[in-house]
């Protein structure tokens, strides 16, 4: 149903806000897509931002990222997701950050 989605199982669990960081420069063997993606995440960048800058759907970006993760060319930093019992110190940190806006 989704265009461009890889088969299940092939797909790493990548959230819209998983932070992606390049582990190294693009190797000689990298495809142009991979090289562009690696160039974008020299500093941490969310999957959503990668999708926006690359102008590619989220599902396509996750496929590209899965290849790069398998090749150990990028690192993925998982998001903090909602818990049944929210973490108060996390909420307090967010409130403190918003107060500075």
């Amino acid at each position, binding site marked *: *149903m*989704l*265009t*461009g989605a890889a088969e299940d199982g092939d797909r790493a669990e*990548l*959230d*819209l*806000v*998983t*932070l992606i*960081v390049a582990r190294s420069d693009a190797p000689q063997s990298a495809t*142009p*897509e991979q*090289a*562009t993606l690696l*160039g*974008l995440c*020299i*500093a*941490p*960048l*969310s999957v*959503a*931002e990668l*999708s*926006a*800058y*690359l*102008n*590619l*759907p*989220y*599902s*396509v970006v996750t496929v590209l990222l899965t290849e790069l993760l398998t090749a150990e060319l990028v690192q993925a*930093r*998982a*998001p*903090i*997701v*909602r818990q*049944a*019992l*929210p*973490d*108060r110190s*996390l*909420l*307090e*940190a*967010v*409130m*403190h*950050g*918003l*107060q500075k*806006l």
Partner: protein
Amino acid sequence: MDFKSSDTITGPRTEDHLPHTAQAAVKIVIVGGFGVGKTTMVGSVSEIRPLTTEETMTQAGVGVDDNYGSESKTATTVAMDFGRISITDQLVLYLFGTPGQERFWFLWNGLFEGALGAVVLIDTRRLEVSFDVIGRLEERGVPFVIAVNSFPDGPHYPIEDLRAALDLAPEIPIVECDARRRASSRDVLMTLMGFLHSLALTGSLT
């Protein structure tokens, strides 16, 4: 779907780079009908120019013109604007302005499941759009607050009348805002965080 060559891709400006210490992100969803002010709210608090992620849905019977009995597949492109607020050197908050129709929500895995909570933006000229959104969030156990975006030509209802009209429990915060103003949008987010904090204290998040 052509991949653009790297010389046509514009990445983030240097000043928009997150520090290498950024360890994890959290997200908040701003949900509401078309034209209610989602993009405006994202833009007013975001530290980066709002960006857009798109997803294409190819499905029979989903398109706008499927009531003509056509069997053809329709491709719908759904866009979501988002922004970012750095909380600390380690923690980043992302805000997603999400269309109100639930059938689009599945396009982005875990959009609501993982979110800390949601802001339901409401336009008093079109309250009925919000009923469905509120119901869906309740079903999914996503904690939310209501923000009434004040449009000059919108009817003004007392908060408790809105609560009754939307059939909301007494503890759910309802605030008025002007999505164009950073301080006002920030206060809406603070209201959500305060609500989540109260749920954490009482341990009553379902």
